[in-house]
């Protein structure tokens, strides 16, 4: 993993001092609320429904065990003993006091962490594949490019007051585990016909009020042009993105308004003028950064272990967990392991201080002292020997961290909703609880198999509901919490936005409605077909019929 040198350390320490002074000036009244707001936001600090919320950056989701221990320490010392992993591979604290934030930042800096650009109208944390470096289907490890982009975008003087927030994701694999196509800029590492590795680039994806799948504007970009091309995109956006209406300010609106071809042409014109400047990325620098992301020393005898197979056949609890939470690895005898943060009864993504420290210790023991946060709010150990899986599972169980539900119905994405967020129309955590209590039969869940439920408490779509196989959106109907369902979305390489099922439904009926949707799926599915595939084959009508009993027109007319 990337390790700071003097330069990185200096920047982060200077940032802590800068923010300490900004906070002081705000508290003494030298800075108005309006002047302080963008400054605190660029440091991840929101004022929420009950208290400030601090979002800490986890660049491309990668954490060392020491960093995770520090996150646990912060949860205990400055918050109420827990943190919340978000869909940006970041962690959020819901209860810190404004006065203590500079101290939190100083604690973070001591383990090479920060909250820089985790909010505000700037380039946000770069996200990536949580199986980067270990996936079997990888063309090239994307993390070195993420780090290069992170450095380029950190305190970029020209792009810190953009029309709106800006999110970049990079994936280096065939399967897209990073929701690349719903980012402002999405980057796929690809190989061209000559066998050279470069980037395929899309712009203008995004969720929120007006959701779009991004449009590809560059089919193959040589590596050395990565930064100049990004700079060209950002410059065109900074100059021409709308600033008159916050809801129309994302790059997706600009791309849509002028068309992707025209946008691509403007970027190309700008890029041609800067591509051979000092922005040219040396291979030397790529190689230097790559050294930070080398494989840990793998045990060449790992595959010889036989205990794993044995335990699989004798312990069904273990086998169920392996079936859902353990994934293949590029090295024989190793696996990637999901630690589910979707335990029934706990808000998705929430972890306690004790659990964080516990996980950090396990990472030291079993996974090269490294942890990854996923964009669907779970954690991953990327380097576990098959012979250690049983011991790891046994340990995880003691802290309620071995729920065998990765990719299943209860592995929901869920935003904080009405319980924490001042923008919410409706609760999302209570719906998660409702779904968890209705669908508590593991056999049923395993039978339903892969399905992604994603839930947002309002149109801002932090819970990515548009790209849920089943999406749930909280709406306000005359002061009551209602939920709008969508079907058929996907954040993966087959990205799609969900279709609206029909009129919103009452809070108490959400889980039952999902039950009926699943009944339709079970009746109609072909063998081995996922919910999404069945939906794509049969369309929305059968689902509509079941939920609204043919009275859609009538209900719509209400």
């Amino acid at each position, binding site marked *: 993993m990337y390790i700071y040198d003097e330069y990185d350390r200096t920047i982060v320490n200077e940032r802590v001092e*800068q923010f300490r002074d900004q906070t002081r000036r705000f508290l003494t009244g*030298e800075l108005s609320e309006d002047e302080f707001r*963008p400054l605190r936001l660029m440091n991840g600090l929101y004022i929420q429904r009950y208290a400030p919320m601090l979002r800490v950056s986890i660049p491309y989701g990668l954490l060392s065990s020491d960093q995770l221990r520090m996150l646990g320490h912060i949860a205990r010392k400055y918050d109420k003993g827990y943190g919340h992993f978000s869909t940006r591979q970041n962690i959020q604290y819901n209860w810190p006091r404004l006065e203590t934030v500079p101290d939190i930042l100083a604690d973070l800096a001591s383990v090479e962490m920060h909250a820089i650009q985790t909010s505000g109208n700037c380039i946000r944390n770069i996200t990536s594949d949580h199986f980067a470096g270990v996936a079997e289907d990888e063309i090239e490890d994307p993390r070195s490019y993420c780090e290069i982009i992170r450095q380029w975008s950190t305190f*970029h003087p020209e792009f810190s*007051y953009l029309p709106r927030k800006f999110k970049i994701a990079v994936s280096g694999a065939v399967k897209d585990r990073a929701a690349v196509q719903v980012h402002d800029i999405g980057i796929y590492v690809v190989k061209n016909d000559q066998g050279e590795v470069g980037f395929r680039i899309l712009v203008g994806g995004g969720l929120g009020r007006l959701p779009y799948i991004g449009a590809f504007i560059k089919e193959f970009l040589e590596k050395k042009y990565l*930064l100049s091309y990004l700079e060209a995109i950002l410059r065109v956006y900074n100059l021409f993105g709308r600033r008159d209406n916050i809801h129309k300010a994302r790059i997706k609106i600009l791309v849509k308004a002028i068309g992707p071809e025209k946008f691509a042409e403007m970027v190309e014109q700008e890029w041609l003028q800067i591509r051979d400047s*000092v922005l040219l990325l040396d291979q030397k620098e790529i190689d230097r950064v790559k050294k930070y992301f080398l494989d840990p020393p793998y045990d060449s005898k790992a595959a010889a272990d036989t205990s794993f197979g044995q335990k699989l056949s004798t312990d069904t609890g273990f086998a169920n967990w392996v079936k859902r939470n353990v994934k293949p690895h590029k090295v024989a005898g190793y696996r990637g392991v999901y630690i589910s943060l979707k335990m029934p009864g706990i808000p998705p993504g929430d972890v306690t201080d004790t659990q964080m420290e516990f996980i950090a210790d396990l990472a030291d023991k079993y996974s090269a002292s490294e942890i990854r946060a996923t964009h669907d709010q779970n954690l991953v150990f990327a380097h576990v020997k098959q012979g250690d899986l049983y011991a790891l599972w046994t340990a995880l169980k003691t802290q309620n961290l071995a729920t065998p539900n990765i990719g299943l119905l209860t592995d929901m994405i869920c935003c904080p909703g009405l319980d924490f967020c001042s923008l919410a129309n409706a609760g999302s955590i209570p719906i998660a609880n409702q779904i968890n209590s209705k669908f508590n039969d593991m056999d049923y869940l395993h039978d339903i198999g892969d399905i992604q439920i994603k839930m947002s408490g309002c149109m801002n779509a932090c819970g990515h509901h548009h790209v849920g196989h089943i999406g749930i959106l909280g709406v306000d109907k005359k002061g009551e919490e209602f939920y709008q369902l969508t079907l058929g979305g996907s954040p993966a390489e087959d990205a799609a936005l969900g279709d609206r099922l029909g009129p919103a439904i009452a809070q108490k009926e959400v889980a039952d409605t999902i039950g009926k949707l699943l009944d339709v799926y079970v009746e109609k599915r072909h063998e081995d077909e996922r919910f999404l595939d069945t939906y794509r084959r049969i369309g929305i009508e059968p689902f509509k019929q079941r939920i609204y009993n043919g009275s859609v027109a009538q209900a719509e007319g209400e």
Partner: protein
Amino acid sequence: MRVIKDNQILEDSWTRVDTVTADQPIPDGDLILPFKYWQQNQDKLANHRGKLAVCLNGEDKIEDIATHIGKFNLIALDFPAFKDGRCYSHARLLRDRYGFKGDLRAVGDVLRDQLFYMKRCGFNSFFIRKDKDIEDALKAFNDFTVKYQTAADGALPVYRLR
């Protein structure tokens, strides 16, 4: 106006005229005029007593001034609100692409916490918003000693120093 110029506070002879119509007389002296007004009234301005500079904002097309750059010792870029970041790009283009070497001045909602970025984008003088402490603003230039990326200040990407 009392400004920060090249890291020092000083009083200079410029006056900014931010709204002016074609039929209005303009006063003598060193004036910063709206670029559009300057463009449309060049004949009339030929006899002006004093120096002339122009002010552009985010809406203006920066390439329109490219061919006139040699005519000005000072170009001002206006921030109607500090969150409007278009003039950061304008500044970079003026310096990096069109080679403007004169005084590049930030005017409008110019506040301490944006000065560091403005300077990096090529501004060298700053008309700090009137109700703010200009001495205090001066501290902003020391916010960071390391810069990750290149900009109009000629900084090399930090990796080239590593």
